[in-house]
């Protein structure tokens, strides 16, 4: 699949944004985080900003963005529509939660309810995003048990990493959060490795034989219906060399998991200004790493239509 920048950024940014929103909602709502104005402003601003930027970016993928509102209508059948509905619906409690925290300086009472609802919304939204991909049968690498948990784990991972950086920056860092971020990073790492192993060993029932109805033997593409690349090939015929993919997998592991984990470990050991700087750095590096991971998520996904083209 063609790794369109808009979609790579969209899924990565909203994943992190909803992760952060969810954690702020839960931790704020349950009173684990104080209702500090700046923390609220920047924390909620960052979460909603990532979400908004991601959603905005996603419209860059649309041919007719002015009709985007229509996407809320088909929630009964379409995961994309559900995502649209969930993402916008989540903004209501998220907005109230942010207002309560920042303007009214409180995170209890109705604000807490809004926070918890926003957290639920965030989880639901990330699930719907994951399901968009997990539901696509023609792409075996996506239509797998690993996709939905992956989206949730990476959302929680990047969200917690951001939250840790925030708390560290505001000098209200908690070992529990840092530990959680570290553990989630390891979980994410492990999940990604397992996913790759699963994908590399995939035996896909759909072959050039079933695609053409020509049973037995080999089916080899002789000529395409057109000499130059068409929409199908540009959108779904993306190919990445094995070597290149291996390199990018390594970069993903370093940036998204290994380096952030190392930085966090150092942050544990070092005093505040350093710990804060390292925590922020860890979050930034991990975000960059997740962009690479998401790029690979698309690039390594093989659509069945490529079988018709001998790819």
């Amino acid at each position: 699949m063609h790794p369109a920048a808009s979609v790579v950024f969209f899924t990565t940014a909203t994943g992190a944004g909803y992760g952060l929103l969810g954690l702020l909602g839960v931790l704020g709502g349950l009173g684990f985080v104080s209702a500090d104005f700046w923390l609220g402003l920047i924390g909620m601003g960052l979460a909603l900003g990532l979400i908004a930027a991601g959603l905005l970016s996603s419209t860059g993928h649309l041919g007719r963005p002015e009709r985007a509102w229509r996407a809320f209508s088909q929630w009964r059948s379409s995961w994309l529509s559900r995502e649209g509905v969930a993402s916008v619906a989540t903004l209501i409690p998220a907005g109230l939660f942010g207002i309560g925290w920042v303007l009214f300086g409180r995170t209890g009472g109705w604000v807490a309810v809004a926070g918890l609802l926003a957290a639920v919304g965030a989880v639901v939204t990330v699930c719907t995003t994951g399901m968009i991909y997990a539901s696509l049968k023609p792409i075996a690498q996506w239509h797998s048990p690993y996709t939905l948990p992956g989206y949730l784990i990476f959302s929680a991972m990047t969200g917690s990493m951001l939250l840790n950086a925030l708390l560290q920056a505001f000098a209200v860092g908690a070992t529990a959060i840092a530990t959680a971020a570290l553990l989630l990073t390891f979980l994410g790492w492990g999940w990604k490795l397992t996913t790759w192993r699963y994908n590399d060993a995939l035996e896909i029932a759909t072959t050039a034989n079933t695609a053409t109805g020509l049973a037995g033997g080999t089916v080899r593409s002789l000529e395409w219906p057109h000499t130059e690349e068409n929409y199908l090939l540009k959108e779904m015929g993306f190919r990445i060399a094995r070597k290149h993919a291996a390199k990018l997998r390594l970069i993903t592991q370093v940036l998204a998991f290994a380096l952030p984990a190392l930085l966090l470990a150092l942050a544990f050991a070092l005093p505040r200004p350093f710990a804060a700087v390292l925590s922020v750095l860890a979050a930034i590096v991990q975000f960059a790493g997740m962009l690479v991971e998401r790029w690979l998520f698309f690039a390594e996904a093989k659509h069945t239509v490529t079988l018709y083209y001998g790819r």
Partner: protein
Amino acid sequence: MTCLPAHTDKKLGLVIDLDTCVGCQACVTACKEWNTGGHMAPLTDIDPYGGNVDGVWFNRVHSYEHTTEMGGRTVNFPRSCLHCETPACVTVCPTGASYKRASDGIVLIDESKCIGCKLCSWACPYGAREFDTDVGVMKKCTLCVDRIYNDNLAEEDRVPACVAACPTSARHFGDLGDPASAVSQLVAERGGVDLMPEMGYKPTNKYLPPRAHTQRAASVPAPRLEPVKAEGGFLGWVDRMLSN
């Protein structure tokens, strides 16, 4: 509405005979020509005279070499929308632009609702959907919905453009939901198959596989030729034959 109809009155579709298709591209351009002025007009061509030419087509013909223990064969393979009974391209559509008609089973796009998210093209395993980057909407085979019921065409012309054009008669059209229909009987007789049945989308269109060498009606039960047994050999035989 992107929920699928529980039942369609008809299952209109195509039957494509891979044993007969010579890959002449007649169906391809007949389709292009009709549809570029038809229901989903235009079928835009980007860079039509340049090096990156890329147009919207609803029907494309591939060629393959199929090799089995019985030998090799070149197979020409037209590919277009299969008008599945349970098409994922419809259910994934967030706007209701994509839909399956309850009356005849044709899968269509309501362009005015399409936001161009392309998800339907990801959901279709067959590559049946084509994005028009100029208009920003998805387009696809309409099974010539603007021909098959068209009062402005002579009744005999109310078939999809590809079927009307096909010089080898390798394309057939009808109601595959009616077991008595000519197309259903053709499928039964020739062992028509679904493409990617494992996907579970239940394509309406069927493909008639090339006849295997052994099944070809064409094998001629000819005994080996032996030299004539006549006095004087062949020339003697000629004389004898002429004298008879």
